[in-house]
């Protein structure tokens, strides 16, 4: 198409084929060469076909818009991670803004998917173990007098309880090395007795005061 346009611009006598056969007679005015890109919104010469209307058209239209909205709410709609804010806030710890550890919100049937797609969720268990571990070295490095031994025995009793938990957890860890643990939201939530909205950091505060528009806003 470019060469054809260029050919017309150069001059009619230089075409490779007989112009008359195709239909351009001698002396006919050809359309002027195009020197700029075609306009963005060329005028419509003919009216377009009317859009579907009536009951069916309206229903399908409403369906389409509903579907669009519904899909945004489903867990399949993955939003990019919220960027970290400038200062770390205390309420961040208790605000569950997204699925933990970037895992997905829904549970597919893992038997049908390749294993590599599963995101491992292990953070909390690791945290717990690292918290408890420091207690252990003091146990082994202690070898002093009786009072300290009494303290030690008391400590040991305490630690027995915690180390039992520890061993249990380690045992579970080993058993479940192959499988994946599901993150247990309940345990995390039990750390506080407050409902989550207690940790509202006041970002939505401004929006609620739209009720009384009579007062001037300073």
């Amino acid at each position, binding site marked *: 198409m470019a060469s054809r346009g260029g050919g017309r611009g150069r001059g009619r006598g230089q075409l490779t084929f007989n112009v008359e056969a195709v239909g351009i007679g001698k002396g006919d005015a050809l359309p002027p060469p195009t020197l700029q890109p075609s306009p963005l919104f060329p005028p419509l010469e*003919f009216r377009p076909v009317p*859009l579907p209307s009536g009951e069916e058209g309206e229903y399908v239209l409403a369906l389409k818009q509903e579907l669009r909205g519904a899909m945004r709410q489903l867990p399949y*709609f993955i939003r990019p991670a919220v960027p970290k804010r400038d200062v770390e806030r205390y309420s961040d710890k208790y605000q569950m803004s997204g699925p933990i550890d970037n895992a997905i919100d829904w549970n597919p049937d893992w038997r049908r998917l390749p294993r590599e797609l599963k995101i491992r969720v292990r953070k909390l268990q690791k945290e717990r173990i690292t918290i408890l571990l420091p207690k252990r070295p003091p146990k082994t490095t202690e070898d002093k007098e009786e009072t300290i031994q009494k303290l030690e025995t008391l400590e040991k009793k305490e630690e027995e309880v915690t180390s039992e938990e520890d061993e249990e957890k380690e045992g579970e860890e080993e058993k479940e090395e192959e499988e994946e643990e599901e993150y247990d939201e309940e345990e995390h939530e*039990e750390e506080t007795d407050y409902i989550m909205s207690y940790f509202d950091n006041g970002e939505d505060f401004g929006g609620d005061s739209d009720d009384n*528009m009579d007062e001037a806003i300073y």
Partner: protein
Amino acid sequence: MTQAEIKLCSLLLQEHFGEIVEKIGVHLIRTGSQSLRVIAHDTGTSLDQVKKALCVLVQHNLVSYQVHKRGVVEYEAQCSRVLRMLRYPRYIYTTKTLYSDTGELIVEELLLNGKLTMSAVVKKVADRLTETMEDGKTMDYAEVSNTFVRLADTHFVQRCPSVPTTENSDPGPPPPAPTLVINEKDMYLVPKLSLIGKGKRRRSSDEDAAGEPKAKRPKYTTDNKEPIPDDGIYWQANLDRFHQHFRDQAIVSAVANRMDQTSSEIVRTMLRMSEITTSSSAPFTQPLSSNEIFRSLPVGYNISKQVLDQYLTLLADDPLEFVGKSGDSGGGMYVISILTTCHLLSSFLSRFGSRCARIFRLVLQKKHIEQKQVEDFAMIPAKEAKDMLYKMLSENFMSLQEIPKTPDHAPSRTFYLYTVTILSAARMLLHRCYKSIANLIERRQFETKENKRLLEKSQRVEAIIASMQATGAEEAQLQEIEEMITAPERQQLETLKRNVNKLDASEIQVDETIFLLESYIECTMKRQ
């Protein structure tokens, strides 16, 4: 995949699944099959994000995976499947016309979730239906199951390929990804489930329960512990079957337009009889004898056998070749060929004007025609004819065929014939359609973004009004709040709504055209 298709896919993915999925999906479409790490490296997204996106895509049947040697799993995207997302509303509406609200919701849930087990679908649909019913009535699972079974029998939903059950326990580690197999016979077998239950209505007491501190809520284990009887059997919507249905509808309406109602009924009967016997992509249906047709005509039409035969002959002789006669033994065998693009293309050319359409139809009929003859036959002045011919030529609707008179192909002694190849014209149109839908979607997104502030404000106001109504506010207060949106703003909102509706409706219409063109191209390619 052409650029236009890729652009359209990216817009669709972004709208329905978010940007991360869009990035991964488009990358896969562009570069073919790749493994996990390569994808993460090439797109620059973290491994976790890629995993999430791939999970979503596989769940919705948009991406398939394959295990290669050395345990490497490669993922491949299916561009055509992404483009089907445009057609979801049409599928749902069709099910509504065939199977009423229950069927509609079943298909909607399947499309929204990709694949689901039958029990999950039944439960969800029952819950949704119960909410729309009046107080006190609940939807029984059995009714929903019945509709599901009917959908499966007519092949509108089909089973997904499932994990093969291995009898012997593998000594080695399990494969990195299961190879899913599906038996042709099993595709529509509904498992024997006795789902007893009723849909649950979300009562207001549930809202009170949510108000309690979450720490006190009992652990969410009850539902998971019960063994699901049809575990592992997933269902998906059978898009091909829907396409077949659309095709049949198009044929029937075309026949009705061209001839009269009775002949369209005849054609519809023939199509219905061969619904399940013909695979969806066959160019011809199985031959049916006129006796069979006569027997299966709907009861209301009491036409005699001779009249039926006359109609069939009429249909067969029609130049558009809807029905063809094959063999003349006994009652004669009649075969339907599926070619609806001819009248479609000519209606398209109304864009260029009716004269162009005339020329086009002429060239189509004559197959090859010279410049001079076009003028004579079409009775259009020479200059105009030339103009239109070149316009169509430049847009690739037509092509020139050279026929040399002398062996040296001298231009002065060669015939130049204009001809129409429907296949290439169809492809060109299809490409244009993709571009136009992409433009429509972009424009819609642009309009929505421009007025985002206004939209959010109106949403907030609606939420406030709703909550105040729930707590029983006075008329005056509601009025006050409604006045928060000033009149010009209201008008702006109205305009926006109208524009968005128009754009959406155009998308739907262009999609219908795309469907016809695609099925035509598919058909012709199969025949060759």
